[in-house]
């Protein structure tokens, strides 16, 4: 059996698509775990699950670890696919530790070779890909959101099993939830991103780049130094391996030199355009189209041209 879990329904559906493939090639079954009663359990079946374990709990790490641990003990799945959300990244290694087994996080590819699960993930700052296999069962994997496409098949049948598990109380007490500022930017979901780096001379000039993002209907991103060192933009805008990995249709890098970590974060972009005054900047080796020049001249003129 293969388990798939994410508290994020979209991510769960994506995992089910990949899980279905793996289950078919292993001639195994695919079960979805739903941690709270959200009423969407039916859709898990249409998107690939044979069984849905529906638990009436809440997406708190301590509780999720307990639930999945118990279900795993009961059903002995060979593979656990867990959505690589922040919650998923915490619970997957904790479950693995309880079983004393390995875990591969943020896998970008999964395949079955000679009945073995082989995974690929970025290592060494995102410039390299490691191919790994597991030494024990269950094999625990996290998959980043939006990695795979969900697949709907309305002809599928399956069973929803309402499960009442006894779990311990969470030892972490949530005191307050604060929404992230304004429209809660999710840069990893943006189709168009205009990102800015150290080429910008001062914080006030951000509106220059913002106006380009706006006219393109895109999100505003930034490099590590703008978010982490200068703190001109909050972390939500930070594109790169340690910030957010993005996969837009169009990525425009304005005044970004193109350090390896940044490049690793935009690897999945369809088209990359670079604007930089240094013809020697590494970004020009990592872009589809580049223009050498002063961003303070190019950006306003580009905005004007696009408006016209």
């Amino acid at each position, binding site marked *: 059996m293969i388990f798939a879990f994410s508290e994020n329904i979209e991510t769960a559906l994506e995992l089910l698509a990949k899980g279905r493939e793996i289950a078919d090639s292993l001639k195994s079954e695919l079960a979805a775990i739903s941690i709270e009663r959200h009423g969407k359990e039916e859709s898990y079946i249409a998107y690939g699950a044979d069984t849905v374990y529906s638990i009436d709990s809440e997406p708190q790490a301590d509780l999720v670890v307990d639930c999945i641990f118990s279900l795993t003990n009961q059903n002995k799945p060979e593979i656990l696919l867990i959505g690589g959300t922040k919650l998923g990244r915490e619970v997957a290694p904790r479950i693995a530790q309880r079983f004393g087994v390995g875990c591969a996080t943020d896998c970008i590819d999964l395949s079955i070779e000679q009945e073995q699960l082989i995974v690929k993930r970025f290592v060494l700052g995102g410039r390299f890909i490691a191919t790994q296999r597991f030494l024990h069962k269950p094999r625990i994997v996290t998959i980043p959101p939006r990695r795979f496409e969900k697949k709907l098949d309305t002809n599928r049948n399956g069973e929803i099993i309402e499960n009442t598990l006894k779990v311990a109380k969470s030892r972490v007490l949530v005191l307050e939830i604060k929404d992230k500022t304004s429209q809660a930017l999710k840069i990893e979901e943006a189709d168009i991103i205009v990102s800015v780096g150290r080429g910008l001379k001062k914080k006030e000039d951000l509106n220059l780049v913002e106006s380009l993002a706006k006219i393109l209907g895109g999100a505003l991103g930034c490099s590590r130094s703008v978010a982490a*060192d200068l703190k001109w933009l909050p972390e939500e805008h930070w594109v790169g391996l340690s910030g957010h990995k993005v996969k837009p249709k169009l990525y425009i890098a304005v005044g970004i030199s193109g350090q390896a970590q940044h490049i690793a974060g935009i690897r999945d972009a369809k088209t990359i355009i670079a604007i930089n*005054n*240094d*013809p*020697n900047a*590494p970004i020009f*080796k990592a872009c589809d189209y580049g223009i050498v020049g002063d961003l303070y001249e190019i950006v306003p003129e580009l905005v004007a041209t696009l408006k016209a």
Partner: protein
Amino acid sequence: MDFSFTEEQELFRKAVREFCEKKIAPFANEIDEKGEIPQKVLEDMASFGLLGITIPREYGGSGADFITAAIATEEIARADISMATAVYYLVEAGWGFLINRYGSKKAKEEILPDVTRGKTFLGIASTEAAGGSDVAAISTMMTKEGEKLVVNGSKTFISGVREATKYGGGYVTVVKTSPELARKGLSLCYLPVKDIPGITTNVFKQMGRDGISTGAIIIKNVEIPSHYLIGDWNRGFYYAMEGFNCARPLVAAACIGAAEKALESGIEYIKERLVFGSPLAKFEGMQFQVAENYTKLESARLLVYKAAWMLDQMYANNRFSHKEINKAVASAKLIAPTVAFDIIKDVLIWHGAYGYTKEAGLEKGLRGVASYIMGAEGAQNIMKLIIGRELLGKEFDPC
């Protein structure tokens, strides 16, 4: 024999590099363009312990030896290849050390804590209009008048004149006290310059190294307290020579720091830059230049650290004669500025037209290092004279 740095020295280099990359390098262009080191940079350098680094802990310094001081110089110059920040740092490291060695306790208590705190500037005023390197020809006079010392004369091509008049501070100043005794009639004093009656200053426009000013100080009947005499009366020549020996390896270290940075960026550039379909670095003409420049840089670097090491050995373990130190220090100071100038020039040319732009960040290095070929703690020909005198014997000394 062991050419490696200690673990502490390696860790210190790593820490200083990180500091310089975060707190100095981002301002390097501004320092050159505005002709001033931002006060924030100086404050950060002070709280990180870089200002007056050789001054003992009791006065707020770190009591660093010269190898450590040279490491910091190299790193500061890497971050600001215009040399401005390195000059600010190294004159205080060199001449702060000397004041601590020979100054009166009262003077040290007055002067040094403000230097290490980054509140005031400390420099060296030796050169006069009639000539810089010929110290014996100095004509600025100091006389005793009761409890006071009175100074008259003028100094020129002095680093940090604007900084010292803005922030406060002053100069280790070479003055004549017994004209009939030539070099044996010189003394050293500490001359404050901010809001001092009788002091006027002006600042020169220069070719480069603009982040720290260079100018003249006109001294007219300036009274200073007697405890500002540094060391003994009429022993100033020897103290000054010792001070130059302390500062010169740091000048040389600044040159190699800037050259290292330039060469590294040049190597990166020629590996990427395509000409006729292949990287510049594939051409033998480039490889030979890389190899030659590396070798020149490495030989200069070895001379710099050997001189610094010998100084440390002299002060800590009483090893090496002054003659041996003179030769080692002069050799390092002779080779480093020209090597650095050549390397930065070559790297600039590798970059083609881009190298000539301000944005490439190389030309300010070339302009800055040039100042060290002209002079600063002794001109190149003086270094040759020192080496010549030590090799040939005193009887061939022209002065």
